[in-house]
């Protein structure tokens, strides 16, 4: 019958349309603005409309999500920050758009380099969030962030990230990437144990 294909197609549309309301009733008003509702809408059993009501609700961010790097620092008891970065420069060498600028500190007396960056600048407008810097940092000092709402009104003032703006405490890192953090801490403890054992034997 001519037009049967169209009718069947319209049936699919009608099903999609009705499914949204059926789902609404089934979830008794909890389909939106609740974590469970959101998880349901992005699961294999999702039916009906799947819109996420951004910015009132946001998709949960997986651990590996990456957006603009940050520098990890340890908080000392006296309130000072100890950056893990040793200014070895691997991140700036590996950076594909070359947006990492590092000035290495030198000892004013000897003129020798000190493993601590005097300045660390990232042009967030140039950064392509590829994550290679975090992947190849041997000191776990630079990591990828989870904040993605970075729109601003003045790019030359707000999009150039200096050391101060890039720095975030270890506790923040442990909070956004718990699995990675635990793995790295375990590896660090193991390396420390080996070193201690070697020291005691020698």
């Amino acid at each position, binding site marked *: 019958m*001519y*037009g*049967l*294909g*169209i009718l*069947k*197609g319209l049936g*699919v*549309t009608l099903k*999609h349309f009705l499914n949204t309301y059926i789902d609404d009733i089934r979830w008794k008003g909890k389909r939106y603005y609740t974590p469970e509702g959101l998880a349901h809408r*992005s699961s*294999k059993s*999702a039916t009906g409309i*799947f819109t996420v009501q951004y910015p009132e609700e946001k*998709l949960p961010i*997986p*651990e*590996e*999500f*990456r957006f603009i790097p940050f520098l990890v620092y340890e908080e000392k008891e006296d309130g000072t920050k100890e950056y893990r970065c040793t*200014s070895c*420069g*691997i991140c*700036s*060498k*590996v*950076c*594909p758009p*070359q947006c*990492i*600028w*590092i*000035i*290495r500190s030198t000892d004013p007396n000897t003129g020798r*380099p000190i493993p601590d960056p005097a*300045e660390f*600048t990232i*042009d967030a407008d*140039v950064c*392509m*969030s*590829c*994550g*290679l810097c975090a*992947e*190849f940092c041997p000191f776990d000092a630079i990591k*990828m962030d989870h904040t993605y709402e970075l729109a601003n009104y003045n790019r*030359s003032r707000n999009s*150039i990230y200096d050391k101060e703006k890039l720095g975030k405490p270890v506790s923040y890192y442990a909070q956004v990437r718990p*699995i990675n953090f635990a793995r790295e801490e375990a590896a660090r403890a193991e390396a420390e144990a080996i070193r201690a054992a070697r020291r005691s034997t020698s």
Partner: protein
Amino acid sequence: MSYPELALETDLTYMFPEIVTRDTRPGYDGYLVDPSHLIEFATSLRDKIGYDYLTSVTGVDYINDGKMEVVYHIRKSTGGVPLVFKVQLPREEPVVASLVPLFPGAEFQEREAWDLLGIKFTGHPDLRRILMWEGFDGHPLRKDWREGYFEDEGKPFKSRWPEGHFQKSENRNPFGRNVDYPAGFDPEEWVAQPETALYSSLDKMTREEETGIDTEQIIINLGPQHPSTHGVFRMAVKLDGETIVGLKPVMGYLHRNHEKIGERNTYLANFPYTDRLDYFCSMSNNFGYALAIEKLMGVKPPERTEYIRVIMAELTRIVNHVSTIGFLLNDLGAYFTPILYAFEERELILDIFEAVSGSRMMCNYFRFGGVSRDLPEGILDKIKDLVFERLTRKIDELELYLTNNEILRHRSEGVGILTPEQALAFSTTGPLLRASGVPYDLRRADPYSIYDRFEFDVAVRYHGDVYDRYLVRIDEIRQSIRILQQAVKGIPEGPVQEGRPQYQVRVPPGESYGRVEGPKGELGFYVISNGKPNPWRYHVRAPSFINLTPLEQMCIGQKVADVVVILGSIDIVLGETDR
């Protein structure tokens, strides 16, 4: 590293003495052909030995030897590894015979080689610039050409560390101006001469008047700002009433000279750039590039990685095909309902990509000899849920929704026909080729990775019209689901990286052509290494670009409204077309 032993019945150097010699440079393969006998050689290759499918034409600038080389990759449509042959030309005046009369598919690629490298092809019907504009000075892929913000021949730049005093790149302009014009070119005075060239190339097409009534032919421009062109793509169309008599695609609006950037980059740093070629399918772009460099380096990824790669590549294919079908329906006038149904599945797959690689679209997941990290916990179950429970059901629903829709069939059946002979001659690849009745799929014709272990069929349809291109994509989604089902069952445990991950890889000198059957067609990376940290040549054989070659052929005789649909059925992404 080179291609496997060529299965040639006879060595070509015996068949063509004095014309052909073996390319004996270390790490290189194939044959060097005397430029004055190129046509003769290519004709016999096509007619006597059966190499009927010219996939890639590109050039290489060997500035230190004073040579310019044109590299051809040619295949048999029955399958097998490609044959590589090259002609070497003097760098000052590189002129060679055009292969367009033999292989029309070389048309855009030769124009590109002229545009970017300055190689002249005699006998080319329409040798104009293709990606750059007419007011552009020089040929940017030549090694002595430097960009406006030139800093160094290769990354990493020395200004970044240890004395990295921050400087915005737009404040740094070594030439005092960042645009160069050819001699005698004044942008103030300039009126669109290239447009004249474009339109006069259209004027070559005349239509025999059958009716005897003299009708006026008009030229209209579709694009570059037009939603149906899927980006900034322009078609200058010559119309007789509503019937198309001539069409010239104009592209390059999104050109950023990806290949030059690639030659400045280190090998590893190219990965995130390949993501941005075809931004719908970053996983398969990574795949092709990884294969090319792994071939040079001689590393093989571990077993688990091979499975992960196949899973990601096939998920990408599903993402691409559902979106293509959705966009095609948009072009047909089914405004946004089908595409949103398609996007529902796409979102679920992108969620997986995000959890695995850290980004939904710019995945940057593959590494040389591995992938950047193992699958996170629970992701494999999510993929299983999708491929075993949801996707098949949803594709059935999409088919019920669209396949027998009378309006869709009226608009697409018999529209934009490409015969199998044309499809091969025009070097088309991917669904466009397979919808024309040529069952050519690299995963079967020249298997890479571990595709030879999976059971699947090469989707093929025989009418070569828009409707068959739609159907062939549906078929391919089903085959991808089949591959995925086998892959998620068979994936072993184990490491995901061969050796230690390194940020500076040592790539031995030589050439390599890595290619994958991307969702849009054969995506090839032709890389030449000279042992330095940056590639000497990095060429992308972009399927969306080359698949546009027969666009005019498909559109002539159709109505103007069909152009949009035909373009939609080719499935182009401008990030890849313009590079």
